[in-house]
């Protein structure tokens, strides 16, 4: 049997790293769309974790895939609304850079 791919931990560690990269992107990027893409990375990390746990933990067999499909659906809904908001604000402000949205602090 495989030494790496046959165990649960490597998948979870990969998911954790992907999640960390995604959160870095969210915290560091200025562009709203980049931030949205970073969130997508985080959600995919979650999906990977869900599938791995579903594949390895007997009591969750088959549920991982179902959970992941639901997460994809939720992510799709979120992205729809998010992109619509980005388009709406771009129409108003002509910039996708989030840290320039600071009218209210002034």
């Amino acid at each position: 049997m495989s030494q790496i791919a046959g165990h649960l931990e490597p998948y979870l560690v990969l998911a954790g790293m992907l999640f960390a990269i995604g959160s870095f992107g969210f915290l560091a990027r200025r562009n709203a769309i980049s931030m949205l893409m970073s969130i997508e990375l985080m959600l995919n990390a979650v999906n990977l974790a869900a599938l791995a746990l579903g594949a390895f933990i007997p009591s969750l067999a088959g549920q991982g895939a179902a959970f992941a499909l639901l997460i994809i659906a939720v992510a799709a809904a979120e992205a729809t609304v998010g992109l619509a908001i980005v388009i709406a604000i771009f129409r108003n402000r002509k910039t996708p850079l989030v840290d320039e949205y600071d009218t209210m602090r002034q």
Partner: protein
Amino acid sequence: MPLPDVIPFIGLGWSDVLFLLLGGVVLAAAFGVVFGRDIIKSGLFLILTLGALAGIYVMLGAAIVAGAQVLVYIGAISVLILFAIMLTQSKVAPLKLAFQTQVAPAALAAVLLALLFGLAFGSTDWGSTVFTDTPAATGTAPVAAALFGPYLLAFEIASVLILAAVIGGLYLAMEPKGDEVGEELL
């Protein structure tokens, strides 16, 4: 000629190599997403990340999720994102101003987070873990059983959620009709 289960010299199985390869692509492409100065390239890297992940999903016996990943994520969401990028890019937003000032603390936080996850997930006893690589466990039947069993309500609600999101998204993204309505400060 059947390949040997374990690759000589390296001591790893084929699936291990495949996992390392795909995992490497996932991480590298993810780095491309968050570090890319050109946002369009970021978008393309995102598609690459998602594609490599789909490969790992297949390895985990979740071909149906991999399919959904390709169709929904790559086919719809990513394209939507690329579309939005093209809609909103302008000369007003110089591409090189990609990062906020807090990039260094964010990087530090992310490294610590990755370490934490690695240590925590690696050291946790997850109980008896068996890779259920049988058709009975990885086919579409158990997925359907879960979706129409314990998760039926969630499944139904997900469709309502998408309906709500589409209605809201349409409302927000539609060009306002008629003339501008004067000043609207609060």
